[in-house]
C-alpha cells in the first residue's frame, strides 16, 4: 500500500517537473521546514508570487535538517543546485562565500535591505557585500510552567542572577518537581548553557578576543568560568532522569506534558512544545512564562545582550534574478505579518512584529529589538567543525565525563585545528 502511494507521489512529482519545463523561469527553493502548518502558508506565498509574476515558477524542495547539513557541500557544487537555500549565517556562510558558490546580491536587493532589521541583515553581510536576506530571528531563554512554579512558590520575575536560578532549582527539587527538561542527546540544547554563560560573563569583547586567539582563546578565563558555573548547575542534578538519551523534540514534549518546570529554549519552541505534547495542547499561552537568561555575579556582558539565531535565505551563484525577487517577496511586510500573526517567527521586516499575537513572542521581539549584541549560536557561528566540538564538550560537562577545564581545552584545540 505504502509502495503504491510512493509510486503515485513519484508520478505526480514527475508530471509536476514536466509541467515546470514549459514555464520560462523556474526558481528552485530548498527549505527545511517540517511544520506542516507553516509549509502550507509558504505554499500559499508561492502561489501568490506566481500569480503576480507571469512566467515564473517556484519549485519547493525539502531536506531534513541533519541531511541538509551533510549534503550541503555536494548540493552547492552540483549544476542543478537550488537557487535559494536555507542558512543560519555564521561560519558556514563564510566557508560558502570563500568557496565562491554564492551570489553577491547587494545590487539586486538595493535599498530593500533598509526595511529589514539592521542587526539581522548584518549577519548576511560579509566584507560589505550582501549574500542573503534574514527572515526570522530568535532568542534563547527559559520557558517555564507557571503552574509548577506556583506549586513550588517561586516568583519567576525575581530570578535575575545565576544564584537565583540555582536557588529556584533547589526549591523545585525539594517540592518534588523536575526543574529542567533538556534534550541531551542532541547536545546543542546543552551548549546553550555554556554559550549563554559566556555571553553574560564576557560580552561581545570576550568572544571577539577569543576569535583572535587573545586572552587564552576559548581556554581563557571567561570560557573556563562559563564551564564552572554550568557545572554548579549540573551538580544539582536539575535535569530529568536519563536526559542524555533525550532528543530535543522528546524534551520539548516532556516539558509540554507538564513534567518539568523549565526548558532552556529557542523562542519559537513555545509553539513546538504544543505540537509535541501528548495532548497536542501542551502548556497553553496563559500558563507559559519566559525568564531571560540570568546574570552571573561579576558578569561583564550587558543584561540586554541576547543569544539566538538569525535564519535567512541565501542565493547561489548563477541564480536567475527572479530568485532575489522571490526572497524579497517572501520577506515582505504582508508575508512576515502572516507568519507573525500565528507566532511562528519573530519577523525581520521592521514593524511586522506588531502582528505577533502572543504576549510571550511580543516580549521576545522586544528583547531582540533592545539588544545591542545578538550572539548567533556558537555551533553555527564557529563553523561546523568547531561548533560540533562545543556541543560535544558541553554535553560532556553535563554528563560529568569532562571537567570545565578539559572542555575548554577541547574547544580551543579544535579551534586551532580549524575547519
Amino acid at each position, binding site marked *: 500500500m505504502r509502495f503504491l502511494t510512493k509510486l503515485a507521489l513519484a508520478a505526480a512529482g514527475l508530471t509536476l517537473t514536466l509541467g515546470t519545463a514549459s514555464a520560462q523561469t523556474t526558481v528552485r527553493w530548498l527549505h527545511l521546514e517540517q511544520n506542516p502548518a507553516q509549509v502550507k502558508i509558504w505554499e500559499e506565498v508561492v502561489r501568490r508570487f506566481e500569480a503576480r509574476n507571469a512566467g515564473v515558477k517556484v519549485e519547493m524542495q525539502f531536506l531534513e535538517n*541533519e541531511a541538509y*547539513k*551533510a549534503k*550541503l*557541500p*555536494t548540493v*552547492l*557544487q552540483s549544476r542543478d543546485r537550488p537557487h535559494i537555500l536555507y542558512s543560519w549565517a555564521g561560519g558556514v556562510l563564510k*566557508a*560558502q562565500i*570563500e*568557496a*565562491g*558558490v554564492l551570489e553577491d546580491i547587494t545590487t539586486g536587493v538595493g535599498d530593500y535591505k533598509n526595511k529589514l532589521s539592521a542587526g539581522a541583515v548584518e549577519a548576511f553581510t560579509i566584507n560589505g557585500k550582501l549574500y542573503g536576506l534574514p527572515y526570522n530571528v530568535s532568542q534563547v531563554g527559559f520557558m517555564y510552567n507557571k503552574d509548577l512554579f506556583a506549586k513550588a512558590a517561586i516568583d519567576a520575575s525575581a530570578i535575575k542572577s545565576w544564584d537565583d536560578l540555582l536557588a529556584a532549582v533547589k526549591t523545585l527539587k525539594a517540592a518534588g518537581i523536575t526543574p529542567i527538561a533538556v534534550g*541531551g*542527546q542532541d*547536545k546543542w540544547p546543552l551548549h546553550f548553557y555554556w554559550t549563554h554563560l559566556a555571553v553574560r560573563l564576557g560580552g561581545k569583547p570576550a568572544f571577539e578576543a577569543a576569535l583572535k586567539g587573545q586572552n587564552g582563546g576559548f581556554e581563557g578565563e571567561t570560557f573556563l568560568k562559563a564551564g564552572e558555573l554550568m557545572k554548579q548547575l549540573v551538580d544539582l542534578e536539575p535535569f530529568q*532522569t*536519563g*536526559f*542524555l*538519551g*533525550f532528543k530535543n523534540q522528546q524534551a520539548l514534549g*516532556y516539558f509540554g506534558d507538564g513534567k518539568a518546570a523549565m526548558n532552556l529554549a529557542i523562542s519559537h519552541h513555545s509553539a513546538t512544545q504544543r505540537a509535541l505534547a501528548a495532548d497536542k495542547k501542551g502548556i497553553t499561552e496563559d500558563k507559559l512564562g519566559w525568564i531571560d537568561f540570568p546574570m552571573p555575579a561579576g558578569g561583564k556582558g550587558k543584561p540586554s545582550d541576547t543569544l539566538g539565531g538569525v535564519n535567512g535565505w541565501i542565493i547561489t551563484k548563477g541564480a536567475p534574478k527572479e530568485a532575489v525577487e522571490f526572497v524579497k517577496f517572501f520577506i515582505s511586510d504582508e508575508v512576515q505579518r502572516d507568519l507573525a500573526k500565528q507566532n511562528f517567527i519573530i519577523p525581520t521586516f521592521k514593524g511586522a512584529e506588531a502582528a505577533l499575537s502572543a504576549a510571550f513572542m511580543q516580549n521576545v521581539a522586544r528583547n531582540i529589538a533592545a539588544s545591542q549584541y545578538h550572539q548567533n549560536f556558537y555551533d553555527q557561528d564557529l563553523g*561546523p*567543525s568547531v561548533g*560540533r566540538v562545543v556541543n*560535544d564538550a558541553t*554535553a*560532556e560537562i553535563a*554528563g560529568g*565525563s*569532562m571537567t570545565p577545564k578539559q572542555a575548554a581545552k577541547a574547544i580551543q584545540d579544535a579551534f586551532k*585545528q*580549524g*575547519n
Partner: protein
Amino acid sequence: MSQHSAAAVIRGRPAAPGARRRATTDGQLGALLLFLPPALLLFTLFVVLPIGEAAWYSGFNWNGFGSPTRWIGFDNYRFVFDTRGFGIAFRNNLLIIAVSLVVQLPLALTLALLLADKFRGSVALRMLFFLPYVLAEVATGLIFSFIYDGNYGLLASVYRMFGAEAPHLLASPQTSMLAILIVVVWKYFGFHMMLFIAALQGMDRNLVEAARIDGASRWQVLRHVVIPLLYPTIRLSVFFAVVGSLQLFDLVMPLTRGGPADSSNTMVSFLYNNGVSRMRVGYGSAIGVILFLICVTFAITYKRWFMRDE
C-alpha cells in the same frame, strides 16, 4: 564511502579465483573478454577509484568546497589517533566482534541444531527467529529506542510491574553499549541460524547414522561428527560476523548516535559524526582509510589461514 568499498572488495574476492580457473580450463577466452570488462569497469569506478580518492583527500585539510588545496601530509591520521573517541570506537568494534563470536554464534548454532529437523512448528519457529534479520536496521533502531525508553518504553513498564524504577540504558555511558549489543545479537542471530540450518540439511545423514550404529551417544555424534562437518559453515559465519561488526553503523545512529560522550560509537559512526557532519572531508577520509586497511588485513589473513580449503 570507503567502508562500503571495503565490503565490496571482500565480497568480490571469493568468486574471482574460481572464475579464473574455470575460464582458463575451458579455454573460453571469448566469455572472459565479454564478461570481464563490465565487471572490471564497475569495480574500478565504484571501489578502486573511491579508495584512491579517499587516500588522496586524507592528506588535506579540506571542508568539501572547491578542490582541496591545503596539504597537511599525515596530520589527519595523527588527529584521528589523538582523538579519544576513536580509541573508544575501536574498542567498541572489538567488543561487538567478541560478543558476536561468544554469544551470537553459539546461540545460533544451538537453535539450528534444535530446528534443523522437521517437526510440527519448526518452520514457523525458524521464520520467527529469522524475522529480525529482515527488518531494516534503522527501523530496528527506532523500535528499540522506544523499548529502552526509561519513561514510556516496554522495559520501563516491565520494571514498573516489579515496582522498580527503570534505568535509562541509552542515556548512560556505562550501559549504552550493552543496549546496542543486545540489539545486535537479537537482530543477527537468525541469519547465522539459517546458515547453520542450511548446512545441516545438506549434510550427509549416513555419517550420523553410521556413528549411531557404532554406539555413539547423542553428544558424541554432535561433538565428533556434526560439528566437524559444520566447520566450513562456521568459518563462513565467523567471517560474516566480523565484517558485519566492523561495519556496524545504521543500528547505532537511531539508538544513541554514538553517545553519550562517544561511549557507543563504532568506527563507522565515528567517521560519520566527525567527518561527514563536520564537513572535515580530509579527517573523515583518514578514518575511512584506516577502517579499510583493518578490513582488508582481516579479510586476507582470515582467507589465508582459515578458509584456505574452500
